């Protein structure tokens, strides 16, 4: 009778089985690497703690940001690759706050390179023509003189090459390019495109009607 369980002949050892611990460690490493790659080059999640983009984005909204549309940024460099298109006026973008790079800001692109931007009594002018974005809101009727604050009266300023002028949709309660200037192309993190979660901390409930909505 042939012995089925006989030891393999010398030189033909059985392949070593991975231990369970090793398989778990490998799974965790793969999960970390995959999450890191996706967050760096495909999509990243952010949450809104301030009201500067109301009513487009409310406090408690969670959103996803497209990380490749303006080119995938190579970590620790200013190099980008595989760009789909340049930022356009009206895009809602996440970027590094130029004054404090540990913070990320989200605002709408108002001025692209070459544009001349000014504000007069809350009315925005781009290249001398009044511009009103359909998403902008004004929640304070007072008009601040330009000598007090650039909120309602500023400019004109010309957007340099490779830079962008950003403004929050909540025009009277947004700390944006009117106060601290332009952002550079290398500061951009991506384009916000969808709200995947929204939690109202005041009434302690989910805003179901906002889930899955595109950000325009």
């Amino acid at each position, binding site marked *: *009778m042939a012995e*089925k*369980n006989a030891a393999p002949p010398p030189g033909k050892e059985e392949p070593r089985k991975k231990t*369970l611990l090793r*398989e*778990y460690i490998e*799974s*965790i490493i*793969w*999960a*970390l690497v*995959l*999450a*890191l790659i*996706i*967050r760096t080059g495909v*999509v*990243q*999640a*952010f*949450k*809104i*703690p*301030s009201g*500067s983009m109301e009513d487009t984005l409310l406090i408690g909204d*969670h959103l996803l940001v497209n990380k490749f549309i303006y080119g995938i940024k190579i970590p620790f460099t200013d190099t980008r690759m595989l760009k789909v298109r340049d930022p356009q006026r009206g895009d809602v973008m*996440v970027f590094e*706050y130029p004054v404090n790079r540990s*913070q*990320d*800001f*989200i605002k709408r692109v108002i001025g692209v390179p070459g544009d001349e931007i000014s504000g007069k009594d809350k009315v925005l002018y781009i290249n001398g023509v009044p511009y009103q974005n359909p998403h902008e809101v004004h929640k304070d009727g007072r008009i601040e003189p330009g000598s007090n604050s650039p909120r309602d009266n500023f400019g004109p300023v010309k957007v340099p090459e490779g830079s962008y002028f950003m403004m929050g949709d909540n025009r009277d309660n947004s*700390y944006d390019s009117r106060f601290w200037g332009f952002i550079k192309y290398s500061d951009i993190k991506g384009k916000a495109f969808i709200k*995947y979660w929204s939690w109202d901390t005041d009434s302690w409930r989910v805003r179901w009607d906002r889930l899955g909505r595109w950000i325009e």
Partner: protein
Amino acid sequence: MKKEYEPSADFVDKVMRRVYLHEARKVTLRERLLASRPIRYVLAGGGTVLGILSAAPVF
């Protein structure tokens, strides 16, 4: 040896099958779940999704 006492051709096979079944019953449900490949993949996939959806504040 008498013919009636001779083991059948698959005698060892049958015995070993019973031995394996007996040993397998000793493994607890927890150990079986931990060793399950689909569960490990689901855990890793879930961790990946949670890692992606862990949201950073943006002002």
